[in-house]
């Protein structure tokens, strides 16, 4: 997933959590970059028609940006689910963040053929826990694949 896709995904999740524009500072924190770097990328996203930035309010995705963000989030969900369900990786969230830059949509599509993903994906992604709500992140019993597919 390229850098722009990681940014639109982060903006999308922040907008979901804030129920409004994503603050530049929060975006920089989420992306673990400086506010200046975040601002530079926001400018690039604006020029590509993916986001709009309003001073003192924050950044909001355009319709095209939302489509792109949901695709990126779906790719991210596939990576998490693949790590957790296929490779039995306990720290799947941390590893998904590490692998996210090198796994693009095309590769995720192939990995997706061997996992059972919920049809509501990526709406099942919980920004608060940084994970699909059907994956076990708190030590609770995870939902089985069959149940998750229902």
């Amino acid at each position, binding site marked *: 997933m390229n850098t722009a896709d990681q940014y639109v995904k982060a903006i999308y999740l922040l907008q979901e959590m804030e129920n409004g524009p994503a603050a530049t500072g929060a975006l920089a924190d989420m992306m673990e970059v400086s506010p200046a770097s975040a601002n530079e990328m926001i400018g690039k996203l604006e020029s590509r028609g993916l986001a709009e930035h309003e001073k003192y309010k924050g950044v909001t995705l355009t319709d095209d940006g939302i489509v792109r963000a949901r695709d990126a989030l779906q790719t991210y969900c596939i990576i998490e689910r693949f790590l957790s369900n296929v*490779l039995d990786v306990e720290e799947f969230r941390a590893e998904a963040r590490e692998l996210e830059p090198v796994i693009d949509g095309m*590769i995720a599509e*192939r990995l997706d053929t061997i996992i059972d993903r919920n049809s509501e994906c990526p709406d099942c992604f919980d920004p608060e826990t940084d994970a699909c709500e059907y994956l076990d992140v708190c030590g609770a019993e995870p939902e089985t694949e069959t149940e998750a597919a229902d």
Partner: protein
Amino acid sequence: MSVGYQVSSDHQLARLLQIGIVLEEVVEARAYHHHEELDEDALDEEIRALLSHAAEESADHRERLEAVIDRLEVDSVPFEEIEALVEAQYGQTKPEDFDGVLYDQLCNEETAYKFYDDVIEAIEASDAQFSIDREELVATLSAIRDEEAEGVEEVTRIMEERE
């Protein structure tokens, strides 16, 4: 791929190679099931040879990746479980689910090529010390990537001839 992405440890490298193994398993399983389940008329000699070669090549790539992982300082990985999982998934796939053998094969080869290309770039961008010689590692992955590129060319040639 994200600009500046680097592979920073044996662990991360092993994880990427594991993903490569799964992609190869998927190619092998799809090629095998295309070969086994599609009707005789749908597969002529040229496509049969292509699928057979694809399955053999994927098995070879998988073994080469496994050999690299074995030399890294990481916990062992459950290859057999992955193989069984992929097989179970494709064992349930009906022939009619396979939409276009050649197109599917092209996607397989292109995806694998892109994956290895990105991994090589991420290794070359990194200063990390791996427990395997970096030049040897890149040479192994480059050889696999080049075979995927040849696969893309071969499938494209067959598709163009049949247009």
